[in-house]
């Protein structure tokens, strides 16, 4: 991992500001004076609590002081549980006061398109400078007319699994199950030995949608047609997917997953109660951070027994949904210009690099330039994440990731379809009820 000290970051910050190059920032920095707008300006940035604590430390200890030096802006970063960001956003918009910049997950920015500042100029510049945005980043932050948010990163979602346990079950290195049937068979063997697979089907922002959506697509299921209006969820492909899941859940999964949030599978995996789970790389990175704490049953560091793999393929193909994050500049903010300049500064390659490095591959960036970063040469276990975002589809497929898709996601309709079925609701009823709920969303304006 490349270490960047405070001095180096300062240099990079200045270079970043120069790279940002607009509105005379470089000139202002060269003169050593803060911009006129920035005298006493405080920017409030609302974010989630990162699953890689080192990245929050970089923001607090390095980015905040460098922002003050580079832009003359006092940065106030508030970090909360990712599941609470939507509630905070709604209350901020309705009350007309709150954070100047909010870092949204998934395609939530589509829900707030009327309440955010157009950041198309920023997105165009950053995209051009950094090899273009991933399609997933673009569709969640662009409503078809303008950029409603500036993409920040994509968190790769991969299966993290215990190498030795899969080997004991007969799946040696390079032979990880490639299809859902194979994965189910492996999970059945593992569960029989007290090492089930683990997966949340609960109301939570990350692991639940990044599992259920690609799972549905891989069977050929989809919410709507490409026109974005014709709801096609209730199809043979979806019914097959849900029916398979019912048996799969009983055969292979830890059935407590129905009540899990995004952190439960991390805890369960690190405690050695599950053998495999769809996750960002946070499990591996935590095991790597504390090699003496997280040990295998043999007493060896667990980090050496973890590998990553994409989700298996089904009749419809192999897909992933990797969690996108993007920053919205709020329309009620009195510091819109400062907020946009801040985003231009922090997403410039030179400044973003410090944060990207601290992620150690947990985040793959929002632009393709990060695939070529030397970071990927440091740890082969993280290599599957490098280009993961290229295989990503987005909620709302085959239609756009628009407001309707964001509403379907926020209501957890697809996730609940599976959760209901594994709880015993007849498969056809669970799919029909989800189909009607998606129809109701699309029927609304």
């Amino acid at each position, binding site marked *: 991992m490349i270490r960047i000290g405070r001095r180096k970051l300062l240099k990079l910050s200045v270079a970043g500001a120069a790279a940002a190059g607009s509105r005379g920032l470089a000139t202002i920095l060269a003169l050593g004076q803060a911009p006129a707008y920035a005298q006493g300006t405080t920017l409030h940035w609302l974010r989630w609590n990162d699953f890689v604590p080192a990245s929050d430390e970089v923001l607090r200890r390095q980015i905040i002081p460098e922002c003050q030096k580079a832009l003359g802006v006092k940065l106030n970063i508030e970090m909360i549980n990712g599941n609470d960001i*939507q*509630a905070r956003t*709604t209350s901020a918009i309705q009350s007309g006061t709150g954070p100047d910049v909010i870092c949204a997950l998934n395609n939530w920015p589509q829900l707030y398109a009327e309440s955010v500042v157009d950041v198309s100029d920023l997105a165009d510049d950053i995209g051009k400078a950094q090899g273009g945005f991933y399609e997933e980043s673009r569709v969640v932050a662009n409503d078809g007319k303008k950029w409603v948010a500036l993409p920040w990163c994509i968190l790769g979602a991969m299966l993290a699994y215990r190498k030795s346990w899969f080997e004991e079950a007969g799946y040696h290195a390079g032979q990880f199950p490639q299809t859902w049937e194979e994965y189910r068979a492996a999970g059945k063997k593992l569960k029989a030995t007290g090492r089930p697979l683990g997966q949340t089907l609960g109301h939570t922002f990350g692991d639940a949608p990044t599992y259920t959506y690609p799972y549905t697509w891989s069977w050929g299921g989809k919410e709507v047609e490409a026109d974005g209006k014709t709801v096609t969820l209730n199809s043979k492909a979806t019914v097959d997917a849900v029916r398979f899941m019912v048996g799969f859940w009983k055969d292979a999964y830890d059935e407590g997953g129905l*009540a899990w949030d995004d952190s439960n599978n991390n805890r369960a995996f690190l405690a050695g109660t599950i053998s495999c789970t769809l996750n960002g790389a946070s499990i591996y990175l935590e095991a790597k951070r504390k090699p003496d704490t997280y040990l295998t049953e043999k007493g060896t560091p667990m980090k050496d027994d973890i590998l990553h793999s994409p989700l298996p393929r089904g009749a419809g193909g192999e897909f992933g949904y990797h969690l996108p994050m993007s920053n919205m500049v709020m329309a009620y903010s009195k510091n819109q210009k400062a907020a946009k300049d801040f985003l231009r500064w922090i997403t410039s390659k030179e400044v973003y690099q410090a944060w990207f490095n601290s992620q150690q591959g947990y985040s793959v960036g929002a632009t393709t330039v990060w695939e070529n970063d030397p970071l990927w040469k440091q740890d082969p276990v993280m290599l599957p994440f490098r280009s993961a975002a290229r295989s990503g589809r987005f909620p709302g497929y085959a239609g756009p990731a628009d407001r309707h898709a964001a509403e379907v996601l926020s209501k957890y309709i697809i996730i609940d379809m599976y*959760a209901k079925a594994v709880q015993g609701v007849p498969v056809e009823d669970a799919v029909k009820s989800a189909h009607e709920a998606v129809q109701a969303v699309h029927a609304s304006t």
Partner: protein
Amino acid sequence: MAVVSAGSKSASILSRKRGPIGRLLENEWWLACLLLLPTAVLLGLFIAYPFVKGVLLAVTDAKVGIPGQFVGMQNFEALWHDGIFRVAVWNTFAYTAITTVFKLAFGLWLALLLNRDFKGKVFVRAFILLPFIIPTVLSTFAWKWMFDPTFSVINWILLHLGLISQRINWLGDPHLAMLSVIVVNIWRGVPFYAISLLAGLQTIRPDLQEAAAIDGARPWQRFWYVTWPLLLPVTMVVVLFSVIQTFADFQLVYVLTGGGPANATQLFATYAYQIGIGTGLLSQGAAISLAMFPVLLAVVVVQLLYIRRVEIH
């Protein structure tokens, strides 16, 4: 007579000395208005305004950041066809009814025990209040850990005692999840009942019990014919408050299950929050919230009428 004349004279002088405001306040009606003003302002700001705002939102198609147009009863019609809303309605009634019965029974039992003389009475009474004193979010987090699908201490104990062979899925099974939120609500609510009913018990004169005992009444008869009728008005008020709070409960369920699994523990408040605040469909969220109002109004009216009748008798 001379005294009266002197009094009238001095009152008349005082009246002349007072300004127009002073004279206005001589009028009881205006004085009453002035004294009521702070309360009226507070009620208006914090009760009436949000309520009216909620009603207005519920009849529009407002979304977060979009004021919306008037759509009449459209949101309520949509609720009628919403399966999750029906689950939330059923859950809310079941949750309120079951917890109220148990809270009343345990609370009354505890109050009767605490009303006796024993060593450390003050300490025990303070200790009993703990679940009620601890912030709900904090205590519910503790319960969440106890019901954790993987690390539940309850499961750990039962497994080690050999009473179960595999973990119980407390929060992942729809029925057990509902049972769990009910148990936690009862745990949290019993002290409120116990302390309130204890206060009621202490207002009952001991000589009534003694007289009944002398007349040969057994303990159960003394409770049923002496204690209970005298405790009933207090009980009704306590139940009234409790029903309102439980019916509109949010924190406990939100922290413990978030309404899951698959909406199995959604209540009015948690579902309204998910739709209105989480998804940003403000009008639909307001409609769900408002659906609670007629029920609560009916409960309040019936109970207040009953209390008045009991008091008259």
